[in-house]
Protein backbone atom coordinates (compact mmCIF):
# COMPACT_ATOMS: atom_id res chain seq x y z
CA UNK A 1 0.00 0.00 0.00
CA UNK A 2 1.48 3.35 -1.04
CA UNK A 3 0.74 6.53 0.83
CA UNK A 4 -1.25 8.00 -2.12
CA UNK A 5 -3.59 5.02 -2.09
CA UNK A 6 -3.85 5.14 1.68
CA UNK A 7 -4.68 8.84 1.61
CA UNK A 8 -7.19 8.36 -1.24
CA UNK A 9 -8.96 5.62 0.70
CA UNK A 10 -9.02 7.42 4.05
CA UNK A 11 -8.92 11.21 3.55
CA UNK A 12 -11.15 11.70 6.58
CA UNK A 13 -8.66 9.83 8.78
CA UNK A 14 -5.87 12.19 7.86
CA UNK A 15 -8.14 15.20 8.29
CA UNK A 16 -8.99 14.02 11.82
CA UNK A 17 -5.28 13.49 12.55
CA UNK A 18 -4.49 16.98 11.32
CA UNK A 19 -7.26 18.45 13.49
CA UNK A 20 -6.01 16.54 16.55
CA UNK A 21 -2.49 17.79 16.07
CA UNK A 22 -3.51 21.37 15.31
CA UNK A 23 -5.79 21.59 18.35
CA UNK A 24 -3.00 20.12 20.49
CA UNK A 25 -0.46 22.58 19.13
CA UNK A 26 -2.84 25.48 19.72
CA UNK A 27 -3.37 24.29 23.30
CA UNK A 28 0.37 24.07 23.90
CA UNK A 29 0.78 27.66 22.71
CA UNK A 30 -2.29 28.99 24.52
CA UNK A 31 -1.35 27.50 27.90
CA UNK A 32 2.34 28.31 27.70
CA UNK A 33 2.13 29.83 31.19
CA UNK A 34 1.26 26.49 32.79
CA UNK A 35 3.66 23.56 32.22
CA UNK A 36 1.25 21.18 33.94
CA UNK A 37 -1.60 22.03 31.57
CA UNK A 38 0.83 21.75 28.66
CA UNK A 39 1.90 18.31 29.85
CA UNK A 40 -1.75 17.26 30.22
CA UNK A 41 -2.38 18.43 26.65
CA UNK A 42 0.61 16.50 25.40
CA UNK A 43 -0.43 13.31 27.19
CA UNK A 44 -3.95 13.69 25.71
CA UNK A 45 -2.47 14.37 22.29
CA UNK A 46 -0.26 11.28 22.49
CA UNK A 47 -3.14 9.10 23.70
CA UNK A 48 -5.30 10.42 20.84
CA UNK A 49 -2.49 9.68 18.42
CA UNK A 50 -2.28 6.05 19.54
CA UNK A 51 -6.09 5.77 19.34
CA UNK A 52 -6.03 7.31 15.88
CA UNK A 53 -3.39 4.79 14.77
CA UNK A 54 -5.39 1.85 16.11
CA UNK A 55 -8.63 3.01 14.46
CA UNK A 56 -6.87 3.87 11.20
CA UNK A 57 -5.15 0.51 10.90
CA UNK A 58 -8.26 -1.34 12.01
CA UNK A 59 -10.16 0.30 9.16
CA UNK A 60 -7.23 -0.47 6.96
CA UNK A 61 -7.51 -4.14 8.00
CA UNK A 62 -3.83 -4.29 8.86
CA UNK A 63 -4.01 -3.77 12.62
CA UNK A 64 -1.32 -5.81 14.31
CA UNK A 65 0.22 -5.79 17.75
CA UNK A 66 3.51 -4.59 16.22
CA UNK A 67 1.75 -1.53 14.82
CA UNK A 68 0.11 -0.74 18.16
CA UNK A 69 3.53 -1.10 19.79
CA UNK A 70 5.07 1.30 17.28
CA UNK A 71 2.45 3.98 17.95
CA UNK A 72 2.81 3.43 21.68
CA UNK A 73 6.59 3.79 21.54
CA UNK A 74 6.30 7.03 19.57
CA UNK A 75 3.73 8.37 22.07
CA UNK A 76 5.89 7.41 25.07
CA UNK A 77 8.87 9.06 23.42
CA UNK A 78 6.85 12.27 22.96
CA UNK A 79 5.58 12.33 26.55
CA UNK A 80 9.02 11.62 28.02
CA UNK A 81 10.66 14.28 25.91
CA UNK A 82 8.15 16.93 26.95
CA UNK A 83 7.90 15.87 30.55
CA UNK A 84 11.66 16.33 30.83
CA UNK A 85 11.38 19.76 29.23
CA UNK A 86 8.30 21.04 31.02
CA UNK A 87 9.20 19.74 34.46
CA UNK A 88 12.87 20.66 34.29
CA UNK A 89 13.22 23.17 37.08
Amino acid at each position, binding site marked *: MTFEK*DFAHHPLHYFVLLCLLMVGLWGLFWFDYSPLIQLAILVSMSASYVTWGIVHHWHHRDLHIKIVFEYLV*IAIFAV*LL*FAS*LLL*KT
Partner: protein
Amino acid sequence: MLSFLRHLFLPHESNNQRAKLLHPSTISLVIGVFILFQFSLNFFSTHYPQILGYAAQISPEEIISLTNQKRQANGAGPLNLDQELSAAAAAKAADMFARDYWAHVSPVGTQPWFFITQSGYSYRYAGENLARDFSDPQSVVNAWMDSPTHRENLLNSRYSDIGIAVVDGKLGGHETTLVVQMFGTRISAAPVVGGSSSTALGVKPAKAAETLPVPVPTAAPTLNSASLLKTMNPRVSPFDITKALSIGMLAVFVIVLLADVIQVWRHKIVRWTSKSFAHLAFMLVLLLAAVMVNRGLIL
Protein backbone atom coordinates in the same frame (compact mmCIF):
# COMPACT_ATOMS: atom_id res chain seq x y z
CA MET B 1 30.57 3.35 8.09
CA LEU B 2 28.59 4.75 5.18
CA SER B 3 26.54 1.58 4.88
CA PHE B 4 25.84 1.69 8.63
CA LEU B 5 24.57 5.27 8.37
CA ARG B 6 22.44 4.32 5.37
CA HIS B 7 21.12 1.34 7.31
CA LEU B 8 20.30 3.64 10.25
CA PHE B 9 18.80 6.60 8.42
CA LEU B 10 17.54 5.55 4.98
CA PRO B 11 15.18 2.88 3.64
CA HIS B 12 17.25 0.07 2.18
CA GLU B 13 17.17 -3.67 1.58
CA SER B 14 19.32 -4.15 4.68
CA ASN B 15 16.61 -2.65 6.92
CA ASN B 16 13.58 -4.00 5.08
CA GLN B 17 13.06 -0.68 3.27
CA ARG B 18 12.66 1.27 6.49
CA ALA B 19 15.38 3.23 8.28
CA LYS B 20 16.57 1.28 11.30
CA LEU B 21 16.04 4.38 13.45
CA LEU B 22 12.30 4.11 12.79
CA HIS B 23 12.05 0.53 13.99
CA PRO B 24 10.25 0.32 17.35
CA SER B 25 13.19 -1.55 18.88
CA THR B 26 15.55 1.33 18.02
CA ILE B 27 13.09 3.94 19.29
CA SER B 28 12.83 1.97 22.54
CA LEU B 29 16.62 2.06 22.78
CA VAL B 30 16.61 5.82 22.20
CA ILE B 31 14.01 6.18 24.99
CA GLY B 32 16.20 4.13 27.35
CA VAL B 33 19.28 6.23 26.60
CA PHE B 34 17.26 9.43 27.01
CA ILE B 35 15.96 8.34 30.44
CA LEU B 36 19.50 7.44 31.52
CA PHE B 37 20.75 10.78 30.30
CA GLN B 38 18.04 12.64 32.23
CA PHE B 39 18.90 10.79 35.44
CA SER B 40 22.57 11.68 34.96
CA LEU B 41 21.67 15.31 34.27
CA ASN B 42 19.55 15.49 37.43
CA PHE B 43 22.30 13.87 39.45
CA PHE B 44 24.95 16.29 38.22
CA SER B 45 22.76 19.37 38.54
CA THR B 46 21.96 18.39 42.14
CA HIS B 47 25.44 17.33 43.23
CA TYR B 48 27.62 19.56 41.06
CA PRO B 49 25.73 22.87 40.76
CA GLN B 50 28.99 24.65 39.93
CA ILE B 51 29.02 22.78 36.58
CA LEU B 52 25.37 22.20 35.80
CA GLY B 53 23.50 25.00 37.42
CA TYR B 54 21.34 27.93 36.74
CA ALA B 55 21.84 31.65 37.02
CA ALA B 56 19.27 34.08 35.73
CA GLN B 57 19.86 37.68 34.83
CA ILE B 58 16.71 39.27 36.11
CA SER B 59 16.78 42.86 37.19
CA PRO B 60 14.04 43.88 39.67
CA GLU B 61 14.01 47.38 38.17
CA GLU B 62 13.29 45.96 34.75
CA ILE B 63 10.43 43.83 36.10
CA ILE B 64 8.90 46.97 37.60
CA SER B 65 9.45 48.92 34.41
CA LEU B 66 7.88 46.18 32.28
CA THR B 67 4.99 45.84 34.73
CA ASN B 68 4.31 49.57 34.52
CA GLN B 69 4.52 49.47 30.73
CA LYS B 70 1.88 46.74 30.65
CA ARG B 71 -0.30 48.63 33.12
CA GLN B 72 -0.11 51.88 31.18
CA ALA B 73 -0.85 50.05 27.94
CA ASN B 74 -3.99 48.69 29.60
CA GLY B 75 -5.16 51.93 31.18
CA ALA B 76 -3.97 51.31 34.74
CA GLY B 77 -1.74 53.75 36.56
CA PRO B 78 1.95 53.05 37.15
CA LEU B 79 3.06 51.51 40.42
CA ASN B 80 5.58 53.07 42.78
CA LEU B 81 8.44 51.01 44.13
CA ASP B 82 7.89 50.56 47.86
CA GLN B 83 10.85 49.49 49.97
CA GLU B 84 8.62 47.88 52.60
CA LEU B 85 6.87 45.77 49.97
CA SER B 86 10.27 44.83 48.53
CA ALA B 87 11.39 43.79 52.00
CA ALA B 88 8.21 41.72 52.31
CA ALA B 89 8.94 40.08 48.94
CA ALA B 90 12.51 39.32 50.03
CA ALA B 91 11.24 37.84 53.31
CA LYS B 92 8.76 35.67 51.38
CA ALA B 93 11.52 34.44 49.03
CA ALA B 94 13.80 33.66 51.97
CA ASP B 95 10.98 31.78 53.69
CA MET B 96 10.32 29.74 50.53
CA PHE B 97 13.98 28.70 50.36
CA ALA B 98 14.24 28.08 54.11
CA ARG B 99 11.10 25.91 54.21
CA ASP B 100 11.63 24.56 50.68
CA TYR B 101 8.19 25.22 49.20
CA TRP B 102 6.75 26.64 45.99
CA ALA B 103 3.35 28.06 46.95
CA HIS B 104 1.58 31.22 48.05
CA VAL B 105 0.93 29.75 51.47
CA SER B 106 3.81 28.12 53.35
CA PRO B 107 3.60 24.53 54.66
CA VAL B 108 2.95 25.94 58.14
CA GLY B 109 0.13 28.15 56.89
CA THR B 110 1.93 31.49 56.61
CA GLN B 111 0.11 33.67 54.11
CA PRO B 112 1.75 36.30 51.89
CA TRP B 113 -0.02 39.03 53.89
CA PHE B 114 2.03 38.12 56.95
CA PHE B 115 5.25 39.21 55.24
CA ILE B 116 3.63 42.44 54.10
CA THR B 117 2.37 43.45 57.53
CA GLN B 118 5.63 42.27 59.12
CA SER B 119 7.54 44.68 56.90
CA GLY B 120 5.48 47.56 58.29
CA TYR B 121 3.25 48.05 55.26
CA SER B 122 -0.38 48.51 56.33
CA TYR B 123 -2.40 47.58 53.32
CA ARG B 124 -5.93 47.94 52.14
CA TYR B 125 -5.35 45.78 49.08
CA ALA B 126 -2.50 43.41 48.43
CA GLY B 127 -1.56 40.71 45.96
CA GLU B 128 1.31 38.44 45.07
CA ASN B 129 2.74 36.96 41.87
CA LEU B 130 5.48 34.33 41.90
CA ALA B 131 7.84 33.10 39.21
CA ARG B 132 10.83 30.78 39.10
CA ASP B 133 13.40 29.45 36.64
CA PHE B 134 13.03 32.22 34.09
CA SER B 135 16.10 33.55 32.36
CA ASP B 136 15.07 37.16 31.71
CA PRO B 137 12.57 39.78 32.98
CA GLN B 138 10.61 39.96 29.74
CA SER B 139 9.79 36.23 29.88
CA VAL B 140 8.61 36.58 33.49
CA VAL B 141 6.25 39.46 32.76
CA ASN B 142 5.03 37.82 29.54
CA ALA B 143 4.22 34.61 31.43
CA TRP B 144 2.26 36.58 34.03
CA MET B 145 0.42 38.48 31.31
CA ASP B 146 -0.48 35.22 29.54
CA SER B 147 -2.08 33.78 32.66
CA PRO B 148 -5.55 35.31 33.24
CA THR B 149 -5.28 35.39 37.05
CA HIS B 150 -1.75 36.81 37.15
CA ARG B 151 -2.67 39.31 34.48
CA GLU B 152 -5.64 40.47 36.55
CA ASN B 153 -3.33 40.98 39.50
CA LEU B 154 -0.70 42.77 37.47
CA LEU B 155 -3.20 45.16 35.87
CA ASN B 156 -5.36 45.71 38.94
CA SER B 157 -5.98 49.44 39.21
CA ARG B 158 -6.55 49.18 42.98
CA TYR B 159 -2.82 48.76 43.56
CA SER B 160 -0.55 51.75 43.86
CA ASP B 161 2.71 50.21 45.13
CA ILE B 162 4.96 47.37 44.10
CA GLY B 163 7.78 45.43 45.74
CA ILE B 164 10.09 42.97 44.02
CA ALA B 165 12.62 40.40 45.17
CA VAL B 166 14.78 38.31 42.84
CA VAL B 167 16.69 35.69 44.79
CA ASP B 168 18.81 32.69 43.80
CA GLY B 169 18.70 29.60 45.94
CA LYS B 170 17.86 25.92 46.10
CA LEU B 171 14.26 24.75 45.89
CA GLY B 172 13.44 21.05 45.86
CA GLY B 173 17.13 20.24 45.54
CA HIS B 174 17.56 22.31 42.40
CA GLU B 175 19.01 25.73 41.92
CA THR B 176 16.51 28.32 40.90
CA THR B 177 15.96 32.03 40.62
CA LEU B 178 12.82 33.06 42.43
CA VAL B 179 10.91 36.24 41.58
CA VAL B 180 8.42 37.50 44.16
CA GLN B 181 6.26 40.39 43.07
CA MET B 182 4.05 42.00 45.69
CA PHE B 183 1.40 44.62 45.08
CA GLY B 184 -0.29 46.82 47.60
CA THR B 185 -2.21 49.93 48.45
CA ARG B 186 -1.77 51.51 51.84
CA ILE B 187 -4.78 52.01 54.07
CA SER B 188 -4.15 55.73 54.03
CA ALA B 189 -3.80 55.87 50.25
CA ALA B 190 -7.05 54.47 48.92
CA PRO B 191 -10.71 55.15 49.55
CA VAL B 192 -12.81 52.24 50.75
CA VAL B 193 -14.60 50.66 47.80
CA GLY B 194 -17.56 48.95 49.36
CA GLY B 195 -15.38 46.57 51.30
CA SER B 196 -14.64 44.61 48.13
CA SER B 197 -11.40 42.86 47.49
CA SER B 198 -9.25 41.80 44.61
CA THR B 199 -8.93 38.17 43.68
CA ALA B 200 -6.01 36.93 41.70
CA LEU B 201 -3.87 33.91 40.97
CA GLY B 202 -5.28 31.85 43.76
CA VAL B 203 -4.00 34.00 46.57
CA LYS B 204 -6.52 35.02 49.14
CA PRO B 205 -8.17 38.35 48.46
CA ALA B 206 -6.50 41.19 50.17
CA LYS B 207 -8.83 42.82 52.63
CA ALA B 208 -8.25 45.08 55.53
CA ALA B 209 -5.22 44.05 57.51
CA GLU B 210 -7.17 43.47 60.70
CA THR B 211 -9.18 40.67 59.08
CA LEU B 212 -6.12 38.55 58.46
CA PRO B 213 -5.68 35.37 60.48
CA VAL B 214 -2.91 35.36 63.04
CA PRO B 215 0.14 34.13 61.18
CA VAL B 216 2.48 31.44 62.36
CA PRO B 217 5.93 32.91 62.96
CA THR B 218 8.46 31.86 60.37
CA ALA B 219 12.16 31.27 60.54
CA ALA B 220 14.26 34.36 60.09
CA PRO B 221 14.75 34.81 56.35
CA THR B 222 18.25 34.55 55.08
CA LEU B 223 19.67 35.32 51.69
CA ASN B 224 22.94 33.53 52.33
CA SER B 225 22.14 30.74 49.88
CA ALA B 226 21.56 33.32 47.20
CA SER B 227 24.92 34.98 47.57
CA LEU B 228 26.61 31.58 47.78
CA LEU B 229 25.13 30.48 44.49
CA LYS B 230 26.00 33.74 42.80
CA THR B 231 29.66 33.15 43.61
CA MET B 232 29.43 29.66 42.12
CA ASN B 233 28.61 31.19 38.73
CA PRO B 234 26.93 28.14 37.15
CA ARG B 235 27.78 27.79 33.51
CA VAL B 236 25.35 25.38 31.86
CA SER B 237 21.62 25.22 32.46
CA PRO B 238 20.16 21.68 32.57
CA PHE B 239 17.04 23.05 30.88
CA ASP B 240 19.06 24.37 27.93
CA ILE B 241 20.83 21.01 27.57
CA THR B 242 17.51 19.13 27.66
CA LYS B 243 15.92 21.54 25.19
CA ALA B 244 18.83 21.31 22.75
CA LEU B 245 18.84 17.52 23.01
CA SER B 246 15.06 17.26 22.56
CA ILE B 247 15.05 19.54 19.53
CA GLY B 248 18.03 17.72 18.06
CA MET B 249 16.44 14.29 18.49
CA LEU B 250 13.11 15.44 17.07
CA ALA B 251 14.84 17.10 14.13
CA VAL B 252 16.70 13.86 13.34
CA PHE B 253 13.44 11.88 13.48
CA VAL B 254 11.67 14.43 11.27
CA ILE B 255 14.46 14.33 8.67
CA VAL B 256 14.60 10.52 8.67
CA LEU B 257 10.80 10.27 8.38
CA LEU B 258 10.81 12.85 5.58
CA ALA B 259 13.51 10.90 3.75
CA ASP B 260 11.47 7.75 4.28
CA VAL B 261 8.24 9.28 2.92
CA ILE B 262 10.04 10.80 -0.10
CA GLN B 263 11.99 7.67 -0.94
CA VAL B 264 8.95 5.41 -0.63
CA TRP B 265 6.99 7.79 -2.84
CA ARG B 266 9.74 8.16 -5.46
CA HIS B 267 10.60 4.49 -5.71
CA LYS B 268 6.97 3.38 -5.39
CA ILE B 269 7.98 1.04 -2.60
CA VAL B 270 4.99 -1.04 -1.59
CA ARG B 271 4.77 -1.78 2.09
CA TRP B 272 2.55 -3.99 4.11
CA THR B 273 1.43 -0.91 5.97
CA SER B 274 2.04 2.84 5.88
CA LYS B 275 2.67 4.79 9.08
CA SER B 276 5.49 7.17 8.28
CA PHE B 277 3.31 10.07 7.18
CA ALA B 278 1.33 10.03 10.44
CA HIS B 279 4.55 9.80 12.46
CA LEU B 280 6.03 12.65 10.44
CA ALA B 281 3.03 14.91 11.14
CA PHE B 282 3.14 14.04 14.85
CA MET B 283 6.89 14.62 15.14
CA LEU B 284 6.67 17.93 13.25
CA VAL B 285 4.10 19.20 15.73
CA LEU B 286 6.30 18.03 18.61
CA LEU B 287 9.30 19.79 17.09
CA LEU B 288 7.34 23.05 16.82
CA ALA B 289 6.14 22.70 20.40
CA ALA B 290 9.65 21.91 21.68
CA VAL B 291 11.05 25.02 20.04
CA MET B 292 8.51 27.24 21.78
CA VAL B 293 8.73 25.66 25.25
CA ASN B 294 10.30 28.12 27.64
CA ARG B 295 11.73 27.56 31.06
CA GLY B 296 9.99 28.99 34.02
CA LEU B 297 7.00 28.47 36.27
CA ILE B 298 4.57 31.00 37.65
CA LEU B 299 2.23 30.82 40.58
